[in-house]
């Protein structure tokens, strides 16, 4: 089979979003070169979209207000002249979702500033009673959280078995971020631990669902130098760690 005929058979899988990596790039190159194929892709992707009808289910009622409020503070993008957008696929890579940002500045200082801004946003926001302002604050809070998490991850440590863990402390609060955590088998959760100076100074910092995949959380941390470690524990967590930590990160030195 020629390269192009081979790429053509990927169209069905592409319409189902069932391609990644090199396969997807191959299909995209092929569609860009072949108008008839793009038409076939459009038709098959319409069939795929109709599959969503069989699983329709009304969302919780509160979501409507949340979506409308979020939209109130979201600017719109102008049309792109001369570029036709393929549904879903074109919008796939938005700059906000970029994972790897190179830490150019002193990351810790930057993160500390962002954390203070987030905390300011959260606690300052509660006093506002105007719905609109609250919404704006929340949306800014979400953006700051995202930025803080991304910046913190620049300094992340790898976990044995996959995933990344980072923590940045500011005063008695710390932002803990974990990403790409492999899903655990049923009956297992991740558990975070504060590890202080003495042998007795180990206490649980919280349990992370074994299938959550990621975590962004502000925690109140014990005074003094210490570390944050993560282990795999039986579902619901253990009073003391029962396995070797997959990773640990300094909270304060």
């Amino acid at each position: 089979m020629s390269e192009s005929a081979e790429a053509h058979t990927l169209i069905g899988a592409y319409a189902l979003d069932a391609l990644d990596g090199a396969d997807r790039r191959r299909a995209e190159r092929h569609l860009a070169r072949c108008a008839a194929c793009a038409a076939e892709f459009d038709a098959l992707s319409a069939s795929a979209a109709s599959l969503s009808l069989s699983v329709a289910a009304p969302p919780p009622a509160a979501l409507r207000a949340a979506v409308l409020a979020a939209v109130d503070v979201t600017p719109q993008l102008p049309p792109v002249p001369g570029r036709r957008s393929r549904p879903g696929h074109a919008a796939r890579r938005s700059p906000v979702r970029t994972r790897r940002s190179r830490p150019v500045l002193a990351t810790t200082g930057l993160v500390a500033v962002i954390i203070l801004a987030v905390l300011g946003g959260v606690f300052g926001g509660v006093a506002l009673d105007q719905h609109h302002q609250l919404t704006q604050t929340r949306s800014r809070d979400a953006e700051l959280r995202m930025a803080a998490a991304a910046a913190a991850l620049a300094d992340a440590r790898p976990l044995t078995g996959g995933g990344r863990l980072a923590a940045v402390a500011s005063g008695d609060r710390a932002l803990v971020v974990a990403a790409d955590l492999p899903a655990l088998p049923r009956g297992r959760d991740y558990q975070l631990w504060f590890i202080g100076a003495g042998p007795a100074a180990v206490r649980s910092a919280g349990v992370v669902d074994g299938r959550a995949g990621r975590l962004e959380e502000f925690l109140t941390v014990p005074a003094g130098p210490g570390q944050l470690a993560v282990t795999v524990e039986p579902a619901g967590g253990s009073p003391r760690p029962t396995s070797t930590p997959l990773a640990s990160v300094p909270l304060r030195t």
Partner: protein
Amino acid sequence: MPTSDARPPSPRIVDTSGGVGGADGSGGDRAGELLRRVGRGDRDAFADLYDLLASRVYGLIRRVVRDPAQAEEVTQEVFVEVWRNAARFDPGRGSGPRWVCALAHSRAVDRVRSAQAASDRERRFSALAPRDADSGHDLVAETVITRLEHERVRRCMDGLTDRQRESITLAYYNGYTYREVAELLKAPPATVKTRMRDGLIRLRDCLGAGS
């Protein structure tokens, strides 16, 4: 927008039956009309669009990501993205519901794939294989708004060979790549991608014939 919250929970939802007809780009694309207005910054049109498509979007995302809380989060992301990008909607490339559903599906799949490392895949395979074996019935959601359209899609899905249906179901509703589907079904990847394409073609013909 305080007033829009008071909007009655729209008999318009029934319009979702613009569903399949709209989804393959033929006539009566109310969502497409609304999208054009949303592209000009019309918030009321956006609220109507939400009412029209929220069940489809949320139901699809929940089916793929499985966790209701995450499904809500992704649904909100998707609608905000629809709002941001509405001016880039091109009716020449397909209907409004299709544009929105494609976006929803791709975001749901992104969420599922980023939530698991490659090392976890095999484990998840063995965990999912038995249940999804009787895929066709698993698809039927309890709450169905567009019953007729739903029936039609299901009839058309029933018209596929078992192997086509299985491959499409695992990819679309479970977010697997075709290589993963191949591994799961112990079939050659080339065979699986052919099944997916042939199955979608058959589905397209069946849905098109009914409208």
